[in-house]
């Protein structure tokens, strides 16, 4: 399994007007691994995420998923291939309860026209409830998800992503806004999503302790360019990375 590249980003550039958000970025995500993406604020991490999942067209370069070019596909088509992302500003269906949030997050890749009028079977319900249990929201499953705390909404969004059975999950700052005492529990769950459920992860994270603890390989962006990459130890001790974070430019 290992060694196969699930996502291959090659020479991707993206500018907004005169602002170059990504310049000639290349990055690989290996199957079954946890890949980290770090960088100071405004370094272009989220732009790269948006490019990968098809939220906007890229100016140059190529993005491949399982060896196929996806940079021209639309968001839904990419999602249905099994490449899913969570949002930095958590997004859930606020007026629906947690169970309904989960049930509508089932994988849609095999859905034909008449599946719109299907009902969710017991297997889907069980799976939804087990995943809610997995993230610790089981007792609140009939509450409108918009009434949950921010941290709980993040956990729900994570559970919804797992419900979708993605091959790769792109997580945009999964620990941001989460109570520090809960972060260890979250790291544990992310790791288990990777090991138990076999989901490859690409994680944007500001919390160095989290990313160094989890990732197999780390990429560091700064000013829209790839600054450094390698194992967490290598990146952590790279003088350029330290400078970028401390602002020694």
């Amino acid at each position, binding site marked *: 399994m290992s060694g196969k590249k699930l996502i291959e980003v090659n020479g991707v550039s993206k500018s907004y007007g005169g602002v170059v958000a990504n310049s000639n970025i290349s990055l690989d995500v290996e199957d079954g691994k946890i890949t980290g993406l770090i960088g100071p604020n405004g370094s272009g991490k989220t732009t790269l995420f948006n490019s990968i999942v098809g939220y906007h067209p890229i100016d140059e370069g190529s993005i491949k998923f399982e060896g196929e070019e996806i940079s021209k596909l639309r968001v839904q088509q990419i999602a249905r291939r099994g490449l*899913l992302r969570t949002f930095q500003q958590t997004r*859930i269906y606020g007026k629906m309860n947690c169970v309904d949030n989960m049930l*509508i997050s089932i994988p*849609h890749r095999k859905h034909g026209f008449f599946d719109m009028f299907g009902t969710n079977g017991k297997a889907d319900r069980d799976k939804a*409830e*087990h995943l809610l249990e997995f993230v610790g929201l089981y*007792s609140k499953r009939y509450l409108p998800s918009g009434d949950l705390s921010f941290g709980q909404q993040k956990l729900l969004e994570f559970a919804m992503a797992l419900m979708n059975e993605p091959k790769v999950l792109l997580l945009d700052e999964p620990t941001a806004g989460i109570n520090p005492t809960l972060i260890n529990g979250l790291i544990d769950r992310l790791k288990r999503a990777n090991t138990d*459920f076999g989901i490859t992860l690409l994680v944007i994270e500001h919390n160095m302790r989290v990313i160094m603890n989890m990732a197999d390989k780390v990429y560091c962006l700064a000013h829209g360019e790839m600054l450094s990459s390698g194992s967490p130890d290598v990146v952590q001790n790279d003088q350029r990375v330290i400078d970028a974070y401390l602002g020694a430019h």
Partner: protein
Amino acid sequence: MSWRARREGISGKPGPRHMGSVMNAERRNLISQGLLLAFGLIGPFLFPHYIQQITLLWIMVLFALTWDAMGGQMGYNSLGNIFFFGAGMYICAVTQIMVAGYDVGEYTSAFGAIHVDISDGQYFAGLFLGLAVAAVGCVFLAIILGRIFFGLRGPYFAIGTLGIALAAGELIGAWDWVGGGSGISLPLYPAEADFFPGSGDDESMFFYTLALIAAVATFLFYQWLYSTRFGLAVNAIRDDEEKAEGMGIHTLRYKTVAWASSAFFMAIAGGIHGNIIHFIEPLEVAFPTVTFGIFMVAMALLGGKGTLWGPVIGAILFHVIKEVTWTHLLGWQWIALGMIIIVNVVFFQQGILGWMKERWPEAFGVTVEGAPAQGSETGGGSN
């Protein structure tokens, strides 16, 4: 892939308390349906003088339900759903004229002076075929319009759809083949038809029955539709369409089906209403944007948008108030209706059912397990 988590202390089934409230909700639903249907069946005999008003009541219920499928459940506030009412009315009328064996252009240019000589069979065949063609035709119109208008979000969608309805009224008014601004007089109900012996007014009873069936069918259809994956998907689109896209939901498909279903029932309502009025013309009867077109929104908001029963309750209340003020407060009726709308949107935007849901959340299945007040500790809430 193993998604199984630890299952400490969970049964995999909804907790007893939740089940209880669900059962209650189902029983309430059945009782309400029974009561309403009973009124539908005996209403015209109890209040024979009000049969026209009760017929219109069922059409109003249909209006509110079909608007809510878009505006309430899916969050696409269409101000142009009345377009399908008018389009259906015209398609039905044209079909009826054709089935009666007349040339539509000649028929309409005679301005009703033509002597319509058709058999009972022709009349009913034309009517039912007309309703069917109208329904199917409007489904196609909704699919085509959806391709164009579903690119618009929020207020732009509302104004864009309003434009459809307004433009349609003007365009039909300029189209001589369908009578232009002078409209069409529809074939008359056969004088010797006697489906409801002893009723004294067979025509009113006949169209009352059609309207009742149409409203009940609409209700039952949406009740079923919302119980399927469709219900969850359109709610997801309402809450966060971009997220829904990001999760791979076929959003355009769901949106198109929602609008097409509205169009289907609105077209039937239009066909029925046109035949009740006998004479159809574009601005007042077929595309009444500022009356029916706004009423359907007001009714859904009043009852509680995004719920199955809200539009029904809103329609009944709104229609009764409307009819009462028209009778007893003539001259003030528009002010009274305006007041209802203002009080509704300023003081309780969530509508009657929405307010009840906030007041008594448990009755609507909103529960936390393991909360102290309920005693039972079933959830595994440790993070």
